[in-house]
Structure formats: C-alpha cells, structure tokens
C-alpha cells in the first residue's frame, strides 16, 4: 500500500455490476488536479475548480467516443473534508455496466493511478488519522454486517457511540485512579487527601451498573456470568441436555450428533461427566444458507434429592459412590447456569418438570422442554394427548431412536440461538469489544468485593493496581492511559508542592 498514488474504484456494487440508475466511482489521491484537468469539465465546459467543495453537475471526457463527453454528477471533497483524508472525487455516472467500466478504465489509464484494493479507502483513512482503529474496525463490520443488529452495532462503533461511552468510562476511571494515586504520591502535601473508601465503592457501583447494562449481564450474577460472557464472546453457545436419570439424554445426544458419541444404557447414572461436542445446525426455513454452531453438552442425570445434597458437599475429596454422583450433579447444575440453552428432557412415561430451585436460576426463555421415548412399548399416544403436548409451549415429544420429531427440536434450537444472537436488545458487540468491556467490569467487580469485604483501604497501591488493570482492559477501545495523564489530573485537582 502506498499513499502517494491515486486509487479509484466503483463504490456501488463493486463486485457484480448490474444495470442500475446510477453508479458511484470514487478516486482518492494526494493531488487530483490531473484527473480534474484531463477528464472533467463543468457543464459549461470550463475546467473545474478543485477548491470548490460540494456537488455540481459536470461532464466526463471519454476520449475515444464521438460523443464529446458524458454528463456526470461531480462530488468534490478536498482533503480536509473527505473520508480518506486525501483529495477525493466521487463521480455519479449513469448505471450502465459498460459505461461504468469504460469510465473506470479511462481513469485507471491515467499516470500513477490504479484500482483500489478492497478496504483501501478505509486503510488510507486510518493511515491519515481520519479513523481510529475502533472506527475502522466498525467500518469493516459495517460492510460485512448481515443483520440489522450487527449493522446497528457496527454503526455505533463507527460513529463513536460505543466509543463515547467508553471514553466516558475511561475518563471516570482515570479520575478515580488519579484520586487514589494522589493519596499515595502526595501524602506529604497538606492539600491532598486520598479518596474515601465509601465514595470509591459508590463510584465503582455506578460504573459497574453501566458496564453490566451494556454487556447485558445482571450485576447480581456477575460471577456466574463470567464464563457465560466469555463463552458468548469467544466460543459457540452451549446447549445442555438436562433431566432426571434415564430420561434418554445420551440417546438424544447421539441422535442430534448423528453418531454414537455417548455411552447409553437403561441403567440410571450411566453418564458421570459432562460430554461436549460441536454441532452445526442449518436453518430450516429460508434463507437456508444460515447456520449456527453450538456446543452440545450431555449432562449426568439430575436426581432432585441428590442435587440439594450436591450444593453442600465439599468438592475436594469424594469418597463414596453417592458423593461421586453428587459431584457430577453439581457440575450439571453449574453447566445449566452457563448454558445458552437448556433442553430439559424427561421420559414420556415419567414426565417431570424442571425443579423449581433450578428454574429460578435459568432464564425461562432459555429452556426447551422435551419428552423422550415416544416409541415406548405399551404407551400408545392418542390424538388428544398429542394435541395437548403440542399446545404446551416449547414441549416437544420425540423419539430419538426413530428420529420422530427430531427435526422439530433442531428447528427450535436453531430459532432460539439465532434470535438470541441476531436480534438481541443489547448491542451486538464485536467479540473483541465485548471481551474488553467484560475484562474491565471483571476487574472492577474484584475491587468492589475487596473493598466491601476486606480492609483493602490501607493498601491504596493494590487498589490502584486493580483500577489500572480495569483501565488497561479498555485500552483496545480507548487507547492507553499514559501515566502522565494520571499525574496531570492530580496536579489540576490539588495544590501540590511545598
């Protein structure tokens, strides 16, 4: 990439030109006078004035044509007003593909001019300081966005709305850090008093609330959300098969995967540990090229009696069979809290609903109820029963062995995950941004805990350490905080100096 030559490209439907009313050709270079002088005229056939910013009609000179010139709309953007930060001309030409490609070829035939590579206009904008990295990243997502939510999110990064939130958090954190640092470095100064712990706790709470709102996490469940959030940011969502022992979860697991991954047996407690396998589901309705990738997890059977015991069992050294089972169940419950979607399985001949204690910790919209073993010998399902089951929201009766109704479950899983990731109410943040915000919130939550539970106030150097960790976490979005900036804040706040 060079910045010195001129680059040009068709900016509308660049990859598959088709007949349309008009097409836009963009040219960017440090100096465009050669294009202006050689190829463009005003509508009255005068040379155009590149100092004149704005849109005006004019003519494009197509040399080999008999027709002396082509009417075009010329948008002239000087370097200080353009997207790239260089002089830019945008030509709106009639949308005939043949004409468009002729105009472009004519431009590219100019000395020191070449076709722009994909993203090169944005790259120039970044190189010349017109876009920040976050904005350039937002732009890339913008162009690649395939859903409205992605687009909104990309736009918010590009126009800096996420950026301005981050800058605000960043400014407030910097200020807190400065107050803490002032209490360390300038205690020999009459004027300086470090920040009070209650004030600090208060400010931390406010910040955490806002960060959590942006992340779509409930502050109360920050701890539980850690794995969930990191999963959301970096890994496919987890779909957990959960239910009483011998509900046929492992059989369903194998059926969904399409292979015998899990050991199955009639005896309860066959599955002792969590089994995880990646799975990709295709859309069942148009557009069919959509897909979601998830992690399918098979959990040990959940015995209600055991599950309460599990909570109080010391997890260090299990000795008895019962303890082992209890531990396995505890793990299943943890997995349920982290899962994006829980498929609650019970056998159709022993129906059981989600235990109340567990239900209260899972978002009700994240549960799909399934009744298995529809083929059960001697259990003939009559039409009325079938209707009742179908009417019950999100309960799917199926048979994993025959594959009956299995597609219904696949569709339900697909719909749930797709809608979650594509029409969410919170910003559909780029994973890297999500991770940055989360790391920041995490550091603040740690500090908040330290301050409220321990006597951390006597160690401002540790408070400062954690605050800086939080600020550093925001750095990918806002840039680093220079140590001089912290000092600058201190000097402007306090009268320092004996």
């Amino acid at each position, binding site marked *: 990439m060079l910045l*010195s030559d001129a680059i040009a490209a068709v900016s509308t439907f660049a990859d598959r030109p088709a007949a349309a009313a008009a097409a836009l050709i963009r040219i960017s270079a440090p100096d465009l006078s050669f294009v202006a002088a050689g190829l463009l005229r005003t509508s009255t056939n005068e040379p155009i004035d590149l100092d004149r910013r704005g849109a005006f009609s004019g003519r494009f000179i197509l040399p080999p044509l008999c027709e002396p010139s082509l009417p075009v709309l010329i948008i002239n953007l000087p370097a200080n007003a353009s997207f790239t930060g260089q002089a830019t001309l945008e030509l709106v030409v009639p949308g005939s593909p043949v004409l468009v490609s002729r105009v472009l070829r004519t431009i590219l035939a100019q000395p020191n001019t070449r076709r722009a590579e994909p993203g090169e206009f944005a790259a120039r904008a970044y190189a010349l300081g017109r876009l920040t990295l976050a904005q350039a990243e937002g732009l890339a997502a913008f162009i690649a966005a395939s859903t409205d939510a992605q687009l909104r999110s990309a736009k918010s990064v590009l126009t800096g709305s996420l950026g301005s939130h981050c800058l605000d958090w960043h400014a407030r954190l910097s200020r807190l850090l400065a107050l803490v640092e002032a209490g360390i470095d300038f205690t020999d100064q009459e004027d300086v008093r470090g920040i009070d712990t209650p004030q600090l706790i208060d400010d931390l709470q406010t910040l955490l609330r806002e960060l959590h709102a942006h992340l779509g996490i409930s502050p109360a469940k920050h701890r539980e959300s850690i794995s969930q959030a990191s999963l959301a940011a970096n890994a496919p969502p987890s779909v957990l098969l959960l239910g009483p022992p011998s509900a046929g979860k492992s059989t369903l697991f194998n059926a969904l995967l399409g292979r015998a991954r899990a050991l199955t047996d009639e005896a309860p407690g066959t599955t002792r540990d969590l089994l995880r396998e990646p799975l990709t589901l295709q859309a069942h309705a148009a557009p069919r090229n959509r897909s979601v990738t998830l992690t399918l997890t098979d959990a040990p059977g959940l015995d209600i009696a055991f599950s309460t015991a599990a909570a109080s069992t010391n997890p260090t050294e299990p000795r008895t069979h019962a303890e082992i089972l209890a531990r396995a169940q505890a793990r299943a419950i943890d997995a349920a809290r982290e899962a994006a979607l829980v498929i609650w399985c019970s056998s159709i001949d022993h129906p059981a609903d989600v235990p109340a204690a567990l239900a209260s910790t899972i978002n009700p919209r994240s549960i799909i109820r399934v009744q298995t073993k529809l083929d059960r010998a001697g259990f003939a399902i009559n039409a009325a029963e079938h209707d009742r089951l179908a009417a019950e929201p999100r309960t799917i009766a199926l048979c994993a062995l025959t594959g009956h109704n299995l597609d219904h479950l696949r569709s339900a899983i697909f719909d749930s995950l797709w809608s979650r990731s594509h029409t969410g109410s919170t910003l559909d943040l780029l994973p890297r941004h999500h991770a940055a915000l989360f790391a920041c919130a995490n550091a603040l939550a740690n500090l908040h805990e330290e301050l409220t539970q321990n006597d951390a106030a006597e160690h401002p*150097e540790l408070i400062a350490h954690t605050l800086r960790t939080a600020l550093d976490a925001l750095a990918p979005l806002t840039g680093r905080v220079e140590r001089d900036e912290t*000092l600058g804040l201190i000097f402007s706040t306090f009268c320092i100096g004996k």
Partner: protein
Amino acid sequence: MKTAFKVIVIGGGHAGVEAAWAAANVLGLAEDGSATVALVTQDPEKIGVMSCNPAIGGLAKGQIVREIDALNGLMGLATDATGIQFKVLNTSKGPAVHGPRAQCDKHAYARAVQGMIAGRAEICVVAGSVEGLVVEGGEVRGVRVLGKGRGLKAQSSKAQSSNGQSSKAQSSNGQSSKAQSSNGQSTKAQSSDGQSSNQQSSRGDDSAGDLRFEVLSFELSADAVVLTTGTFMRGLMHTGERKTAGGRFGEAAAVGISGALAGLGFELGRLKTGTPPRLRRGTIRWEELPEQLGDERAVAFSDLSGMLSEEEEGGERLGAASLSRFPVLRQTDCRITTTSAAVHRIIRENLHRAPMYSGQIESVGPRYCPSLEDKVVRFAERESHQVFLEPESLSDDWVYCNGISTSLPVDVQDRIVRLLPGCEGAEILRYGYAVEYDMVKPHQIYATCETRGVRGLFLAGQINGTSGYEEAAGQGLLAGLNAARRARGEEAAVLGREESYIGVMMDDLVTKTPTEPYRMFTSRAEHRLNLRADNAADRLTPVAERVGLMRHGDLSRLRAGRFERRSRLLRELGELIDRTRVGEKTLAELCRRPEFTVEELMRYVGGAGRDWPTEVVFTAHTDRFYQHYLRKSREQMTLQDDLERRGIPAEIEYERLVHLRAEARQALMKFRPVTLAQASRLEGMTPADVTLLGVLVKKWRQEQGRRTGGEPPVPSR
C-alpha cells in the same frame, strides 16, 4: 600536567559526583597508579552542595536513593552520615509505597561528598569551566577547559582549607575516630590533586590574592565525557525585576557549553526552577510553632551504614561514610507555619512584578513544585498553605522555608515572611529566586545517557530535563557506568522499567516529550509493587556486580559480603516461612493477609532460637504479601519481554514506511526507539501501530539482508 583520562565528568553536583564515583568503581586506577577519571568543576569547594532543600529521598525518590546504594553509589552513604532528621513517609500504606526521607546538614553533606571523592585516587578534581567539547568524526575525544586564574588559585588553597574545615566540624560533633579517617583521605586527595595544581602553578599564577590572573586554557582528553550542567548552562536568576546571570546564588553561569552543544546539532530547551527564602533561626519564635519530628528509630539508606563494628571500620579507608555508627549527627526537629489571606492578597497585588507573570520568565517550571505565586493564582479559593521550617544545618542557623518558593521582589518577600506566624521578626538570610537554564531535549539520548548525536558523550541530571538530587544522581550513576564501560570497550548497560525506578526514569526520558522538569513519582512505575525501598539490593546489587560497579573501591568488597549474607538469610528465612505451618496455613499464606504484620511474623520465626535481622524479615514478609500481584505482573512481563528483545535497526528509514499512520511515523522519527517495547511507549503509538511496525521492521531487515547479503547489526543501546 596529566591531561589524558578515560572518563571526564563535567560538573560537581549530585549527578557529577555519582558519575565520577561510578566510573571510578568500574575503572579503578590507571596502570601507572594515576587517576582515570577527571571531575571538572568551576569551584571544587561547591562539590556536593545542596542548592535547594537540604533533604534527600521522599516518596519515590527514597526508592531511587536505595537503588543508588544497591548499585554501590555514594548518595545513600553521604545521607546517612549527615542526616539530622530521618522519616519514612507513607508508613500507613503498603510497603511498596513507603518513602524514606532524610533532612541533612547541608554543610556536612557537601563535606562528606567531597571527602568521599577525595578518598578515591581514581578521581582527579580539576577546577575550571568547560568551554567546548573536542569531537572528531562524531565521537567525543575530550574537553576544552578554561581555567580562570582565580578559580585555579582557589582550588589549590581551598582544597586544603575545606578539608581542614571538615575535620574540624566533624570532631566538634564528637566523631573523632571518623574525623581521623577522613583526614587521612584528605591527605591522599591532595597528593592526587597535587599533580594538576602543580601544573597550574608552573604556568605562573601563584600570586595569591591577586585577581588579575592569566586565563589558562587547556584540553583534557578521554574516551567518554559525562556532562552534568545542572542549572548552570546559561543560568539566569530572577528575583522580582532583577536578573542575574548564574546557576546558583553567587556562582557564575556556564556560557560556552550551550553554544558548543547547539553547534553539534543538539536541540536545546529551557526550563525554570525556583527556591524559597532562607531565614535565621534565632529570629523565629521557634518553640511556639507546632513541631514535626523524625522517626523514633531512624532507618538508614545504605546497606552499609552502621553495619560494622568500630574495629572493622578502623582499618579501612572508607571515605566519609559512617559504617560503624548510625545515625551519626544529633537529630533535630522542624516547625510548621502557614500563609494567610493577607499574604495571598499581597501576592495578588504584586503579581505584575513576579517574573513568572510579567512575562520575564517564559520557560516552564514544574507543576508539582509551584512557586507561592503559582499556588495563589491556580488555587485562588484557598486561604492558607502550610510552610515547613526546616533547619539546614547543625552548625549554622539557616532555616529553609519549604512551601514558599518564590521569585517575587525582595520587598514583597520581606512583607510576606513577616506575616507568617512565628516569623514576625524573622531575618531573611537569602531571598528566594527563580532560575532559568538550558537543557538538551532528552529524545536525543539513549536510555544509557549517551547522546545519539555524539558517541561517547553522556548527559545526566537537569541537562536532561529532570529535577531533584535523586533523579540527577541516578542518571549520573548510569552515565558514569556507561562512560566507563565505553572506555573499557564494553557494551552499554541499561536498567529496565521492571527492575528499577532509574530504569523507569530513563525510559520515560527517551519516549516522552518533557513539558516540565521531570520528577519521579511511584505512579510512574507499572511494577511499583516490586520496586521497593526494602528490596533494592535484591534487585540491583547482582546487576552492580555483573556490570562492573563493584570492581574497585574498598566499599565494593564490604558490600558484596553484606549482600551475600543478606541473600543467604533471605533464602533460609524464606524456606522456613514456606514450610512452617500455623494451624492449617503456612506462614507464607498468612503473610498474604493484611492483618498479619511483620512483627507477627517476627514472633513466629524469632522463636526458633535464631535472630533474623528486621530488614530481612520485612522483605520476606512483603514479597509474600504481594506475591499474587507480582506473579501476575511477571506473566505480563514475559509478553512485554518479547517486545523488549526485538530491536529496531538504528538506520531504519521511517520516511519509507508509508504504511504507518502519519502520527506514529512522526513519533518514531523523533524518538527513534531502540526496541519495539520502547516504540510501544511513545506518545501517539497504538498497539496496532506497534504490530505493524514489527512486521515492517522484519520486512525491512529481509530487504536489507538481500541487498547487503546479511543481517544488519543490531544497534548497541
């Protein structure tokens, strides 16, 4: 006259003496037994003078003094020998931010430093003003010295009188044994100095008392030159409307050297600093003012102070350092008074006469050390500021007014001082003044203190835009070390940000554009929890041994012995702490709890029938208290290490790296970082820029490799 040295140090302030001392430690004596280091100063009697506040250390600065001591420097020893109030600041907070501070007897301090320098036969003190640098082919060869007749005369006669004074003053303080050893050194110093003064005399200027001397110009040659000009380079002092050329009250400015540096292509800047008025203690109603006392149990800066028995010390010639006693001098108290609305009103009424506000001074002063007029303007809502009255010496009654640095006219200063409670009848012995001076913008040096433009020329102290004795001394030590290593044909040595405050300072200087005199704060150090006063020796004494700072000098052997013992005890105690269980937890685990104090740990380990030195228990405890955080920052460090190791070729042409953002490219062209890590710390560099730079450097190397048929050499730092 001896004119050939290995290293020449210009300037006898805190940077200069530390540079000369460090160079002497590395170089030792020449083969013929003569000096290897020349210390050129306008007035040898002013060596080690405390121009401003007679205090050493404080927050972050105390850590630097501990680092200087760990690197076998002299500042800690001189402070311990002459401190009249010791106090560790911030003791209510974690040990990482404890800041040891001492107020010194300023006369005793200068004498102690002069005694220590005199005690080193490796160092030859030359009186004169450096007027030019001898540079050939981009490499320094020596200096041109203008020996003013009066200065020369003063040197030979005053050298004796100053030594005489020192022994007298010390014995009056009741340290006869120390005074003797100091005397012994003085004799030795005169004989080593004698060479040059004889030479000078032979040029025919022994007509004592006559001020019309012939001006003597001579050249000294060396492999490396350390320049420490302090506030003297085109120094200009202001008190109200009155301007006087000079670097310190009553002392001339250094004029030639600015021009010489500009001629060599250096970009100079101008900074400002100031000092408050001094009062006569006898005229202050001292006893009526609230007092400020030092710590009951003084803590020494040096690992050697007070560590030897008198017999052990007796046989050694160890400079003015007090190795068998600490503290040495009688401890004293300070007093506190305050400014008032009336004082502030007078200042406001006279602002037009203050050089800072009349436009007479345009250079920038430090925000953290504002003049009283600055405070009144910037914090107009405050009606009162504290003023600390600090005795400057036990042997005179000068009092330093900490808090009212000013350059207002003398009549205004008179009125202000008399409005301070307790000072109604105070006599002003010296008025406050501001001083402007030239500095070399520090992007022109490497983190070794060597200039980029002239090989072998090193800069240290205020010339690099810093302020403070400790900052100056830290740079002086590093400059002296590297000047000496260059003279020995050894590779330059740098200190990392993760191992020392001195490293933080050097890295900051070469990656930031200074807007005010640079002062150290603990918040500048990202590895603050590890850069502590208590573990300075653990961090840096091994470095000192590796780079040659412990090669020569009587103190080196002693220090090595002390350190070996400390390391052994620390190891043994560590094992004991990690092993011993109290209930379910080990002592190590208990140390992580804030409520488990050093004293508590002492109770547990002391019971094993063994006396552990307090300082060893303190470090063992603190290391474990911060262990969790230290481990995390070590993990980050390994990431950063990769960047620290990746060098950037010195000859890289950033003009050609058009892929870089314009802002990043400008920063790179200005600072020319030596490693990717340094590049990452430049202003305006984003992480993306650093990644891109990494790729471009690699590509550039490959291209160069193809062109020249080999990898270009990695630049020395």
